[in-house]
């Protein structure tokens, strides 16, 4: 507003009134002056997104980025375990009891609560993080599904997005189903009213008001929902193949189906879909060179042909502490790894024959001349590591000093080896034990241990053997959790010669470790009335160490 002033002294009352009126009118008619603002930083409003032609592409790209986003849940550096899906994987490893911190102070291992079964109650981070994380993924998938559904005649690309949306959603619910369904155990009491219940179902059609009273649905209902999503994903991805394996393709959908059938004890279908996945993917298991490469082993998808599906870190979206490599790569000198030094539970190590190259992922206790460990550092460093410490996961390009480059890794979500092992177990359980043993032996001798012999005839022992191979094959990748819970395999942490780093780790669980029934966080229970009184029991402190 600009005021033109007559500098001459005004004495005329008429002029005065005129000027007074003009100003008064001017002042009260300038309401549209205020300028609308938009964020000019790393955020965008829904209006800006609505105006963007590539909004759907960006939202689709967002999902794999979200799966590895540092500080996803809190939006800022609050908890170093807040690292999206890889953090949940580390929780699985600990819950299994397959990893132990071997560093000077086991308390550096912030994930140990999953292992030692303390602080898992509804007010704890361990309850909050997986719940929040998975439902954030589910919202993103729902948003994609919803956006494409609004399109009257979707293109093939958009249909592909729709298929991927369903695949992501089914993948998330498959996890939550298995994590939250309470299984009877000798440590906690499962009330009848929560038996067989999974999690509240939130779909692209769930309104916010529904969310206030959204009960846990039964296993059967959730299973049907997952299969329905996977069927849709299969349909839409039949005609569309994403350009990279950072997105789920048809082979991944087959793999997800194999997992779901297995969880539902539908072994016949599990075998069929595991095989379909192997064939459709064109992938082949890692060889020894790829496995042990100190610059690309388990950190670069491009260095192998085994990963059907993976996520990637970008340097911008991670902190120096909050990244997968910094937690689990034995050679990394940043983050918590240099202090926690995750190693393998000794009984697993002892059971791996020397002829199995996967044993090279762990430092041998007795004789460091057992094998010339491949490393991006030097042999003195290797010799300084505690026994059983893992060097399976490598720093990108062997850069063990700089988290921004060495930590910008890929993390596998599905490897073809898992499909071979699902196929073996499923054949054994649906066809004949012998068929299963043959499939397992074939996989092992072809790809892992030429001397491998399996002489099992008993179904339970066979399933245990496959589980053991998953524990070795997928060590650190966490996925054996689902099989261990399904098979009520328990966890062995206290035994003579155990490398458990302290009394509190020395707990043996028979059947189901109570913390395998994940607890729903309080803020869900408080804001979703249907869950009040329907939470899983708090497993904290329910198992005592045995000395």
């Amino acid at each position, binding site marked *: 507003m600009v005021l033109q002033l007559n500098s001459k002294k005004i004495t005329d009352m008429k002029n005065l009134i005129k000027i007074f009126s003009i100003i008064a009118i001017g002042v009260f008619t300038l309401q549209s002056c205020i300028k609308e603002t938009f964020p000019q930083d790393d955020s965008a409003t829904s209006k800006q997104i609505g105006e963007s032609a590539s909004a759907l592409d*960006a939202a689709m790209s*967002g999902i794999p980025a979200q799966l590895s986003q540092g500080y996803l849940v809190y*939006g800022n550096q609050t908890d170093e375990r807040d690292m999206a899906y890889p953090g949940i994987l580390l929780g699985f490893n600990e819950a299994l009891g397959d990893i132990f911190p071997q560093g000077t102070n086991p308390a550096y291992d912030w994930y140990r609560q999953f292992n030692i079964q303390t602080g898992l109650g509804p*007010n704890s981070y361990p309850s909050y993080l997986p719940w929040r994380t998975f439902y954030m993924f589910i919202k993103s998938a729902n948003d994609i599904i919803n956006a494409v559904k609004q399109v009257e005649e979707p293109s093939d690309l958009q249909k592909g997005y729709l298929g991927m949306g369903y695949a992501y959603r089914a993948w998330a619910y498959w996890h939550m189903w298995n994590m939250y369904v309470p299984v009877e155990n000798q440590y906690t009491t499962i009330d009848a009213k929560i038996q067989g219940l999974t999690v*509240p179902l939130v779909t692209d059609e769930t309104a916010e008001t529904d969310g206030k009273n959204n009960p846990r649905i039964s296993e059967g209902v959730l299973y049907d929902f997952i299969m329905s999503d996977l069927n849709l994903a299969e349909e839409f991805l039949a005609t569309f193949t994403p350009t990279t394996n950072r997105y789920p393709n048809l082979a991944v959908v087959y793999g997800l189906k194999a997992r779901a059938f297995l969880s539902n004890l539908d072994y016949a279908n599990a075998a069929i879909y595991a095989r379909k996945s192997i064939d459709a993917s064109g992938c082949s298991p890692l060889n020894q060179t790829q496995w042990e490469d100190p610059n690309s082993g388990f950190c670069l998808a491009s260095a192998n042909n085994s990963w059907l599906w993976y996520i990637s870190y970008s340097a911008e979206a991670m902190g120096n*502490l909050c990244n997968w490599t910094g937690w689990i790569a034995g050679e990394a000198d940043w983050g918590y790894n240099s202090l926690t030094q995750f190693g393998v539970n000794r009984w697993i190590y002892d059971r791996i024959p020397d002829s199995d190259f996967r044993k090279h992922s762990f430092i041998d206790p007795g004789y460091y001349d057992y094998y010339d460990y491949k490393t991006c550092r030097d042999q003195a460093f290797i010799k300084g590591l505690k026994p059983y410490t893992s060097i399976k996961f490598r720093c990108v390009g062997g850069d*063990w000093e700089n988290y*921004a480059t060495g930590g910008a890794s890929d993390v596998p979500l599905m490897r073809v080896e898992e499909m071979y092992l699902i196929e073996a177990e499923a054949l054994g359980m649906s066809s004949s034990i012998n068929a299963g043993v043959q499939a397992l032996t074939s996989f092992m001798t072809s790809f892992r241990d030429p001397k491998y012999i399996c002489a099992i005839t008993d179904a339970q022992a066979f399933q245990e053997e496959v589980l053991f191979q998953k524990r070795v094959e997928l060590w650190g990748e966490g996925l054996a959790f689902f099989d261990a819970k399904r098979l009520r395999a328990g966890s062995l942490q206290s035994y003579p010669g155990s490398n458990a780093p302290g009394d509190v780790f020395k707990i043996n669980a028979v059947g189901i470790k109570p913390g395998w029934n994940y607890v729903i966080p309080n803020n869900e229970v408080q*804001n979703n009335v249907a869950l009040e009184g329907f939470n899983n029991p708090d497993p904290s402190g329910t198992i005592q160490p045995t000395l």
Partner: protein
Amino acid sequence: MKKLLLLTFSVMMGFTALFAQQRVTGTVTSSEDGAPIPYATVVVTGTTLTSQTDLDGVYSINVPAGSNTLRFSFVGMQMVVADINGRAVVDVIMSPDAIALEDIVVVAFGTSTRESFTGSAAVVSSEVLTKSQSSSVINALAGAVPGIQLTSNNGAPGASSTIRIRGFSSLSAGNDPLIIVDGAPYSGDISNIATSDVENITVLKDASSNALYGARGANGVVMITTKKAKAGKALVTFDARFGGNMRALQNYNTIQDPLLHYETHYVAMMNYFQDKMGLSIEDANVRANQNIGLSSSNAGLGYLIYEFPQGQSFIGTNGKVNPNATLGRTIGDYYITPDNWADEAYRTGIRQEYIMTVSGANDKASFYSSVAYLSNEGITAGSDLKRLTARLRASYQAKNWLKVGGNMSYTNFDSNYLGNNGSSTSTGNVWAFTSQMAPIYPLWIRNADGSRKVDANGIEMMDYGDGQNAGLARPFLFNANALQDLRLNTRNNEGNAATGNGYVDINFYKDLKLTINGTFYLDETRSTEVLNPYYGQFASTKGTVIKVHSRRFDVNLQQLLNYKKTFGRNTISVLLGHEYYNKKNYSLSASKSNMFSQKNKELGGAVVDGQSANSSLSEYNQEGFFGRVQYDFADKLYFSGSYRRDASSRFNPNHRWGNFWSVGASWLMNKESWFATDWINELKIKASAGQQGNDNIGAYRYTDLYDITNSSGNVSTIFSSKGSEAITWETTTNINAGIEFNMWNRLTGVVEYYHRITTDMLFSFPVAPSMGYTSYYANVGNMKNSGAELSLNFNAISTKNISWDINFNITYLKNNITMLDEGKKTKIAYDADGNEYKGYQNGSFFVAEGVSHYAWYLKEYAGVGEDGQSLWYIDEEDGSGQRTGTRVTTNQYSEADYYINNATSISPFYGGFGTTLNAYGFDFSINFSYQIGGQQYDSGYAHAMGSPTSNNSGYGYHVDVLKSWSKENPNNNIPRFQFDDTYSAGKSTRFLTDASYLNIENINLGYTLSNKVAKKLGGTSLRFYVSCENVWYWSQRQGFDPRISYTDTGSSYYSPMRTISGGITVKF
């Protein structure tokens, strides 16, 4: 001859007249500062003979015979009548016309007289402000005026307190008042304003004062007015003060003796091994001795720092440390002995301040300039503020219809600050270490001979508890040493801030004035963070440097039209105005690692890009149109009304505009003819009502927001927060009524009642996280703050040489949520009596109708069970899961129910009192602040009372732990002390503590030399003084400071500083 006679007579007469006339001279000075008063008028009483003082305040006048008195007058000064009594020199000291000065009240877009002011305002004068030594002028408000509460969780140099005026208007939106500096909103750092430049702070509390700030006035307005020159001769003032800062926060009474700490921890281990592991007392003793030096996973403390004879045990079955044990242990090349971390961390910071002002004014122009330098060291290394401020304020009456003025200030600052303030678990927070570390851990790594180890880089090595010190791992705040980080890392802000204000006053006509006001604020800050390559989590990066440049630029433009007209006994004044405000925050940041040298703190000196380059711009716009009408009748009845229409960019374009208004009236009863009580000098009744808004909720809450992220080189968006389009103004309706009085010209006071209701309250409303987000903002519910204020000033003694004033104020506050949207009542909660409330949980508080915004919602402690475990209450349920209405107890923390507690963390009574005594050149003052009642959660105490667990061990134990339950001592309320009792000190009502406190804000003692002595020394006034701030406080428990916040009071915050200074003020 007759003529001659006549002539002679005439001459004689003339001579007589001449001789009867006396010439009197003298100097007129001000009692305030001893400065001469030029242009003061001197009149011989009963005549028309007048004279004026010159620039040096000197006058001379001829006094005819028969006249014996002179009358001195000057604008703003009380008139002085002096008897001559034959003297040739009559010096006069004039005092400021107190009533006249206090009569001016700074209000929105102008000033008002106190008499005509219908609202509620509290003024803190420069006299009070100069007694404060805080770098932030706001901190001087503590206890000084009623209705204002300050909390502070950061005592660092330059940090400001949080201000709450008459309670809390909002749950989720900001409760901070609007800060106005010289008429324009101020968003910058308060500590950029030199306290010495502030003339006064006026706190506007009611609607009729605030309504013209419409959208932003709901939380009250704090108006800071800077100094301008007073009429008179040029005055030069120089002030220098020098002193020290010390820690004012008290420490919790924790066990300091390492021996006793081990013995106490041993009890926790023994209880654990016997109770949980089923070991016999002998086996448990053996195991405890084995494990006490092992990690917390083995129930140990990680360090064993005593030597004792081989073959003996460290602690006997009697629970006592082996008498042959000696403190200090040699392990290989290392000598392990504990250090007092607090002693090593704290220092006495040096505070020095130098201020020089030059000012002068005549009836055409006024000029004020100042330069001040402050160097204020914090109480630890790495925390300080150096600040240079300069101000130039001038105005000029260019024409009789045109006045122009400007006010420019410049600040250069350079400050080092600490990280992670307040986080008790943060490894970067030095306070977490010093306040919680058990007394057994060494700070230094020592050689076997006891000397400190020095590393290859020449750095004295500190223990990070990561095994470097003889392989020992500390279970508490491990792999960290915030004290070493402090020495090796850099956290620095330096930059320049400037404000500029220019105005033009144009008198169109004798009653009509147009004012155009423009103000900008610019702050350019350059932040540097250097993370050292030697120790800590960034060591592998070989040194990391992070640079952030931020710019804040605010522009405020005002056009004001004032009209004032008197018709007989009626006066009417009208204001019309328009205001536009724009704020921009820019930021640019990047980091690099692998540094050439720690001394080269620039990106250019490092070689590996941290891939974190970023920049951003955020913008806020606000615009308003407003008007005000004031009417007074015969200077005794006053009415005012105002209206403002405001828009804020924080809301959706469809919900952007809001209307705000106020009305007010006051009546000076003592001016009525029938009012003939001579001991009441003034009696004013006033009342006001109105509405203001609050848009302080952050930007873009009205829309969903997405993060823009790199997804392997592709642009990707990830949902980040939920918005709701319909959110709009939170509106506060404010009612104020009060009485102002003056009795015997000695006792003045104000009593006020206030009632504030916030409607459309903005909530960050929690949602079940299964929706993919956890909360969003919505306008739901109403909240009420009501109460009363009393402030009294009593002039006990007022003689020529002695004056003694006492002041006291108290505020009563009650806060209640009066309405909550049905849709937001998602949860049912109960209090201990079984009363039902519907609402939702907000952290440790419950939001429901009829309870306070800060009503505690906690598990309720029920004492100690038979086995010594903590008990909490739980509602008994019948077979069908229905509440029976009775409460039973449980020792399972997770099962215990939450109850709404009748106690809130808001104290119902608070205020301040103080006294000032001036006698024979000495001046003394002391000021207190206090609050009474309320319950605060003492988390510092709770932590020190907790049992160690494998996740949390190695902290100092409170001495009260020694009184814990045991089989021998079964009758007390402190649970057993047993390792792995995770929840023994779980958050519950057990740690709610009475929040009352009394604090000595400051004590000042000064001596002003008499004018004669001062003049001999070359000045006009000379004052010496000593000043002490934050002297001492009393609270319910040693270490507990309820002033930290309303929600949590830990011990991991930057302590308030106690400052003691001596100084000198010279005026020329």
